[in-house]
């Protein structure tokens, strides 16, 4: 028997990498693709999430004015966090707690300050993330084993990409040729063309997704072995003697939110304030976080709410090279760092990737079916011959 050629061997490796797990892979790709646009789906379902500017000239309200507006409409609510949307068609969300330990998000119109309503009790975005990221398996002791199961898929995915490029003879030439997607010549031809064409143009995307997912795997291993590679120190606290003491009946003086945000934006030039985390107790500073010139990473300032003193800064320049890589992985995986159109790009390539696991299977079964038919044909011919002889 002739030795199989090297490319044939690579082809077999390529086939076998995803074939035995194709349904699981398909499911993870499909749920991830939906997760990319889950916020937009919520926008379609829940009118409270939408916020259009009344007209082009209406500015957004100030930070403290928004807080006052919330306090007036929801006097019982204790606001833990404010988050401004990435996209202008969304309302800002406030995480609030009510007496009786009920917690939810409420949506606030950034132009009028009107509380437009609470989040739906079914949080689609969180559900899709949990389904895609860890198969809903809870994190009880360290990372969920679902997280491991999903992130392990990154290895066959990356290997599929590499072997796929190896078996695609001189794939780079295809970039300069007319794309070929033959319709009407049978399913086998169509799915073969589709698999090659979408693979060819998704190389960057598959690389991003699989490498970032490998990082998710490494991240879990590091966390579960209590290994840290972060340059981040222990969280800052407000010194005991800087927390005011007041006589009973007096209220504690805190700076207006706009002043605190101004301090943060002065200390972190280019900061686009996106999240405000309110103190969790009297010794906890207020945290102002947002993106800056490099959209993949967050910067934050922790500020003394009584005096405006900067307690801690986390700038881009505080990160080392490794952290630039690791911290950029998540946004690159989710595509949530550049607004709606970027998300659509991620969604589109996510769809292609989902279909690649299906088309891979279809090619295999069609080819196997043909091969089986071919193998059976001589047998049938024999049978026909035998029939002729006996009749």
């Amino acid at each position, binding site marked *: 028997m002739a030795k199989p050629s090297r490319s044939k061997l690579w082809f077999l490796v390529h086939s076998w990498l995803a*074939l*035995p*797990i*194709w*349904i*699981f*892979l398909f*499911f993870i790709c499909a749920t991830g693709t939906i997760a990319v646009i889950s916020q937009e789906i919520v926008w379609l379902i829940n009118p409270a999430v939408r916020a259009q500017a009344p007209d082009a000239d209406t500015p957004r309200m100030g930070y403290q004015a928004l807080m006052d507006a919330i306090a007036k409409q929801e006097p019982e609510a*204790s606001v*833990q966090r404010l988050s401004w949307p990435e996209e202008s068609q969304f309302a800002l969300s406030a995480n609030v*707690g*009510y*007496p*009786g*330990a*009920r*917690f*939810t998000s409420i949506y606030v119109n950034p132009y009028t300050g009107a509380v437009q309503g609470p989040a739906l009790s079914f*949080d689609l975005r*969180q*559900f899709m993330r*949990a*389904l895609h990221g860890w*198969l*809903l*398996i*809870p994190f009880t*002791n360290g990372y969920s084993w*679902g997280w491991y*199961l999903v992130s392990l898929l990154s290895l066959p995915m990356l290997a599929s990409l590499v072997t796929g490029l190896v078996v695609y003879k001189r794939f780079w030439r295809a970039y300069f040729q007319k794309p070929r997607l033959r319709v009407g010549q049978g399913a086998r031809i169509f799915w073969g063309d589709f698999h090659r064409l979408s693979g060819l143009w998704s190389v960057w995307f598959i690389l991003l997704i699989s490498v970032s997912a490998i990082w998710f795997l490494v991240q879990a291993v590091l966390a579960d072995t*209590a290994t840290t590679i972060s340059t981040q120190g222990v969280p800052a606290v407000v010194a005991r003697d800087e*927390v*005011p*003491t*007041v*006589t*009973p009946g007096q*209220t*504690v003086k805190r700076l207006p939110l706009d002043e605190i945000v101004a301090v943060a934006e002065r200390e972190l030039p280019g900061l686009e304030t996106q999240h405000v985390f309110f103190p*969790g*107790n*009297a*010794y*906890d500073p207020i945290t102002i976080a947002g993106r800056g010139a490099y959209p993949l990473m967050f910067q934050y300032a922790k500020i003394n709410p009584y005096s405006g003193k900067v307690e801690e800064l986390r700038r881009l320049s505080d990160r080392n090279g490794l952290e630039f890589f690791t911290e950029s992985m998540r946004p690159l995986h989710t595509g949530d760092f550049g607004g709606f159109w970027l998300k659509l790009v991620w969604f589109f390539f996510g769809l292609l990737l989902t279909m690649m696991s299906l088309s891979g*299977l279809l090619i*295999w079964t069609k080819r196997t079916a043909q091969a089986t038919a071919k193998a*059976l044909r001589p*047998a*049938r011919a*024999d*049978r026909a011959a*035998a029939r002729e002889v*006996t009749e």
Partner: protein
Amino acid sequence: MSKTATLAPAAPKPSFWRRWRFHLSALLLIVPIVYVPSYFENLALSRGLMGLGQRPAGDVLVGPWKLQFAEWKVEPPKSDPAGMVKTFTMAQCAGCQDQIRAVYLRVGKPRSLRAAGSIFFGSPHRAFATVPIPPRTAPDADLWITAEGWDGSVHQAPWPIATASPATVEWLKKQGASR
């Protein structure tokens, strides 16, 4: 040569395994289905739809303030880089928010405010504290609550572990037995 003899070996029926082997990973999709109820249960807990925690642990009067406590999850202490730890939740009395500066929790009576233990973190309606539980703690020992007012006053109260978390008492008893 008979007809049947020629026909018999022609088409062996593919076995179940051959037919389905590439689709068996579909069985993995049962996993998320199995976990749907616990996912929504956890969600209800974190949204406070089940109250302050999995098990209400009663009110404790600390100085002038009535604080409501709960065991976040009914389970023995969990391993953590800080040792074996247990998480409790606390809600302040209505209107106490402007009076209480901070609340702390630890096993055994603190010698000073600096050693008052883990500080509660969160909202006045539900704050969390994760407390180290030394395995050598006597099962009938007390947790101590320290509350500090905005006026600088400090109040303390004991809180039996037996009231706070029977699951922790069970665990401590086992620790004692295995020692």
